[in-house]
């Protein structure tokens, strides 16, 4: 199975070559047609991306402006998702929050891709001590319940959004390091690597120009699979009061603000941000599964 994965990964890694791009597109269309859910997920992703980019400019109300006279109103035509206990428009807040949640998830994923991915490649390629150190580090992180470790890290580094990003990146480190390590390891004596070595390339050069581009497709799948988890994790941390502070609109903290009102029946305050969160995570999970089918048909479930 591992050996079969190499040509598919290698083909996907050369987007510049025209025939490869064509077959990739055809394959993408085939996967989409076979599994329409991936198409839906992609559409959802576009909606989320647009909301993150343009959200704050197109919402009907200022997400921070409170209108005490209109507090705790049920969803209506004027306020699609109702208003919260301070009379703020929940629809505007949910849309505006997309940017922050998205940003936290993206930054942490990019961070861990750089850190965990590179460490994993080095471990898989060089083996020996590098491998032992990276693997030991990954094992130690995995020895903690991950959310609990994230709480500890945010508590230690300080209660800020930046540290939520760092904590999320750290708890995802083992996932990235392990995948990158395994993928780099099977390629370390592949034909194209030996060819590069024989042409006089240094080890680091081979790592960056031969191995790294070849495992990028698999790392992309890993990214979309962990994006959902990163969003959930960040929202969970802000739900318990870490990182994001009120009145900043963020899905986790908005659910927390609505929690007290659930008992008295004002369901809309918590429901809409919670549903947005759920949809975003759902979207990334489906997208991840779809991407995996695209990049590595061998591993289809």
């Amino acid at each position, binding site marked *: 199975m591992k050996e079969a994965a190499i040509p598919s990964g290698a083909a996907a890694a050369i987007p510049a070559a025209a025939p490869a791009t064509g077959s990739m597109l055809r394959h993408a269309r085939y996967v989409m047609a076979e599994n329409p859910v991936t198409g839906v997920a992609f559409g959802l992703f576009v909606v989320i991306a647009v909301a993150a980019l343009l959200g704050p400019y197109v919402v009907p109300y200022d997400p921070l402006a409170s209108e005490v006279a209109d507090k705790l109103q049920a969803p209506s035509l004027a306020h699609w998702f109702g208003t919260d206990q301070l009379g703020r428009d929940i629809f505007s807040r949910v849309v505006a929050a997309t940017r922050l949640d998205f940003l936290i998830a993206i930054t942490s994923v990019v961070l861990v891709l750089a850190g965990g991915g590179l460490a994993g490649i080095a471990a898989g390629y060089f083996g020996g001590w590098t491998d032992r150190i990276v693997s*030991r580090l990954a*094992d*130690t*992180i*995995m*020895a*903690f*319940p*991950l*959310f*609990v*470790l*994230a*709480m*500890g*890290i945010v*508590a*230690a*580094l*300080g*209660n800020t959004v930046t540290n939520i990003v760092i904590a999320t990146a750290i708890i995802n480190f083992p996932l990235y390091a392990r995948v990158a390590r395994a993928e780099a390891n099977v390629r370390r004596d592949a034909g194209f690597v030996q060819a590069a070595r024989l042409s006089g390339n240094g080890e680091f050069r081979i790592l960056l120009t031969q191995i790294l581009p070849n495992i990028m497709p698999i790392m992309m799948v890993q990214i979309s699979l962990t994006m*959902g988890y990163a969003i*959930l994790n960040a*929202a*969970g941390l802000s*739900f*318990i*009061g*870490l990182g994001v502070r009120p009145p900043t609109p963020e899905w*986790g903290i908005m*659910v*927390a603000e*609505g*929690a007290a009102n*659930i*008992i*008295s*029946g004002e*369901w809309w305050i*918590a*429901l809409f941000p*919670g*549903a947005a*969160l*759920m949809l975003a*995570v*759902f979207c990334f*999970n*489906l997208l991840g599964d779809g991407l995996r089918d695209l990049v590595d048909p061998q591993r289809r*479930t």
Partner: protein
Amino acid sequence: MLTVIPTLVGVVIVTFLLTRVLPGDPAIYFAGPAATPQSIAEIRKTLGLDRPLLAQFVRYVDDLAHGDLGSSLSTGQPVVTEIASRLPASAELTLFALVISMSVAVPLGIVAAVRQGSWIDHICRVVATAGVSLPVFFTGLLLVYVFYFLLGWAPAPIGRLDVFFSAPTDRTGFYLIDGLIDLDFETTWAALKQLVLPALTLGIFSLAPIARMTRASMLALLGSDFVRTARASGLDNRTVIITYAFRNAMLPVITTLGMVFSFLLGANVLVEKVFAWPGIGSYAVEALIASDFAPVQGFVLTMAILYVALNLAIDLLYGVIDPRVRLEG
């Protein structure tokens, strides 16, 4: 067995580093706002912060070995006693949730695999995908809204027991068991009612990976040679599925439990916050909000040790179920 020791060493080092590599000076922090330079220096000395990092680490390990996790700033109580008194609440919740999710997920996964492509299989797939996408605190709130506010079946989410009841005599710390030992069925029933919703929330959360794994491993086994042979030998369907496939299929499921516990222990914190459950999770959250450091650190360490212990238990269980593992070990 031997792999546990380096893991524990790693856990202790990480928790140590989490406190000592703080930006800012813990001594100033512990001294409070009205501190003079002398009192800060004094605190630094008592905390051992003026000594090299290695010496601090030795002292930390020594304290740990004596069961000393420091004291909480806000309550003044030793962290160990507080965590010990709150641990049963969390354990009861988590175990009950695990029982619920196992008893739903395993049969669901089996039926989904046996009747592949049927509506049960589709339900299983939807549950598996939705389960991992649902924020656990959100599920909890939805359940509260439906079962408390709309239907009125569940009691208000205010902890382990309604204020009208007094806790049963403390024997195991599990209200359900203690209540039954006391033969106090009314209290047991009240405790059960409080427990159901939070446990269900956690259960739904852990349902997905278990169901998914059961289905996948059952599918792999149902297509295997020995199952085909068993069928060809004329054994009835029931025997083939239960004795041949199921027993072997449980092995990867038990391995998955390790990961499920990682999720459960983390999700526990969120669920405890939603339901005002007086466990160690909500203790840590309160301390976090109050910037009270020792309890958080004690909590992280306790959870990590629990998790390592659970994984060890899973490994041992694996050996009991699969004799081949024992031979290799």
